[in-house]
């Protein structure tokens, strides 16, 4: 409905115009510039496809792709579009196969996407067939640029990508390696949500650590997270990635920060405390690390629940959030059970994340009330620098700094 294209008036990012969450033109440009551009898109974990031929179907932006382990154990990411007449050659969310065969005319592709079979290519009884100059080499499934690190898989439409390590930068790499430390991973399970809000609101939700101490009664009540916990908010040099690092404190004055919190209940106790029986598993003192990696990944470590959250945009007003909960191969039974229990905090029914999906629903609706207004993103000032606390929206400002650059806004 935009009669003339939108323009971002102010120079800063402490005010964000709401039309970036609603304008279909903006969204179309995002698909090309953000997800289709020079970015490493998270597509899954190696542990999901341990053996040659194992594959999963996922998407980058809105485009379906196949992530498959090749004969030599290497990982290929292929556009899920038959080179003949365009069918999704893969119609399952996951599986194992020797090759991908399109059902329509049985063009067959190797695990690296190379076209290996074209029925009747030479015709039948001298009739028909493909032209003599038809070369199967020109008709494989489009192969994306792929990189992995310690079990996490990333892909890009751009072939000239910088190494993932440089893409993340030192600070972010260190935190990434904290969870993806090279130990073999074990999948605990997946959950998937269709959230009725713009995909950027998911990032803002994580890049805004201070909401947790106000919105998440559960978190605060049980001291899993408090604004007065020692913590910091960090970004990479471009501002596109960020991390919240926080440490659970032993005995804090309950009245300190929580007094500002409407619904705090000091006395609450769990009837089944096993839900929160937490053990320290990382060498550093941090008890919560939430990292966001441009353009579609959140890495979560909260209590003993570890998960990747992959963002799949679905129009300006919705996105799919795919959670993959994981642990390590060497988890003992107690830890395996613990991770399952702590998973209650997260996902579509999470004691914590449920608040967030509801809030994102309200946000998208509220934004539509008047898309010509703008968000006020000024907690912790108007700058984009790191902070040694979390009473700040600096990571959101940093995110939009990079976003404006990429989008030419």
């Amino acid at each position, binding site marked *: 409905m935009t009669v003339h294209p939108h323009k971002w008036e102010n120079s800063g990012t402490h005010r964000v115009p709401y039309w970036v969450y609603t304008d279909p033109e903006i969204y179309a440009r995002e698909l090309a510039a953000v997800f289709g551009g020079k970015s490493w898109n998270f597509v899954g974990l190696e542990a999901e496809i341990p053996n040659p031929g194992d594959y999963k179907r996922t998407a980058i932006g809105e485009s379906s792709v196949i992530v498959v382990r090749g004969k030599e154990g290497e990982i290929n990411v292929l556009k899920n579009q038959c080179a003949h007449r365009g069918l999704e050659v893969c119609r399952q*969310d*996951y599986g194992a196969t020797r090759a991908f065969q399109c059902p329509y005319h049985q063009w067959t592709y190797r695990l690296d996407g190379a076209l290996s079979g074209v029925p009747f290519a030479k015709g039948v009884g001298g009739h028909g067939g493909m032209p003599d100059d038809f070369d199967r080499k020109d008709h494989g499934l489009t192969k994306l640029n792929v990189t992995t690190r310690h079990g996490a898989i990333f892909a890009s439409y751009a072939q000239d990508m910088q190494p993932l390590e440089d893409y993340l930068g030192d600070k972010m790499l260190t935190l990434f390696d904290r969870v993806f430390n090279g130990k073999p991973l074990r*999948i*605990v*399970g*997946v*959950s*998937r*949500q*269709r*959230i*009725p809000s713009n995909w950027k609101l998911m990032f803002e939700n994580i890049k805004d650590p201070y909401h947790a101490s106000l*919105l998440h*009664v*559960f978190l605060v*009540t049980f001291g899993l997270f408090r604004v007065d916990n020692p913590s910091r908010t960090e970004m990479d040099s471009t501002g596109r990635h960020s991390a919240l690092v926080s440490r659970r404190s032993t005995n804090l004055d309950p009245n300190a920060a929580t007094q500002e919190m409407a*619904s705090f*209940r000091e006395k609450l106790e*769990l*009837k*089944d405390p*096993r*839900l929160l029986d937490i053990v320290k598993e990382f060498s550093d003192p941090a008890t919560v690390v939430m990292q966001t990696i441009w353009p579609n990944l959140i890495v979560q470590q909260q209590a003993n629940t570890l998960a990747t959250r992959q963002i799949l945009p679905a129009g300006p007003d919705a996105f*799919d959030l795919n959670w993959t*909960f994981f642990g390590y191969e060497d988890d003992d039974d107690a830890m*395996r059970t613990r991770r*399952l*229990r702590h*998973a*209650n905090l997260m*996902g*579509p*029914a999470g*004691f914590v994340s*449920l*608040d967030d*999906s*509801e*809030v994102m*629903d*309200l946000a998208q609706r509220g934004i539509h009330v008047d898309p010509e207004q703008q968000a006020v993103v000024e907690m912790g000032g108007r700058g984009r620098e790191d902070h040694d606390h979390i009473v700040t929206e600096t990571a959101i400002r940093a995110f939009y700094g990079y976003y404006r650059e990429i989008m030419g806004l």
Partner: protein
Amino acid sequence: MSNDPGLMLEVQALYTAYADLIDEGPISEWPSLFVETALYKIVTRENLARGWDLGLMLCESRGGIEDRAYAIEHLSLTIPRRVRHLISGFALTTNADGSFAVTANFAVFETIEGRVTTTFASGRYRDIVVREADGKLRFKEKISVCDAATINNSLVYPL
């Protein structure tokens, strides 16, 4: 397969109570339908099929079920909504230990305040029901298997 109408009626009454305490409330009484050591779990067919243990909800005792009920009522920020359970296709068999294995199909409809009613989920119950000392039937184990891998935003109430 049991063909004792009285027993089947009693079992169905348990499921009716289960649905009514979720749909009409009070949710705080919903845990009373489970035994002390009950297991309550909501899983997606996908995780089941892939051999992954993750539950969307996992309660390992009535206490855990009470924690969930309390959070729904008092701790979670939710947009007001109402769910509605339709349940049919009960099958009951008696296990060696005298407990009953019960399966049934469910469909859950959701009505969020200010919006229209939608089909929220369909799936299957795979439960174990036992008769306790007080003569009442209760869930010893209740596994709600959700057909879809994707949840329409938030899973506020049990399935």
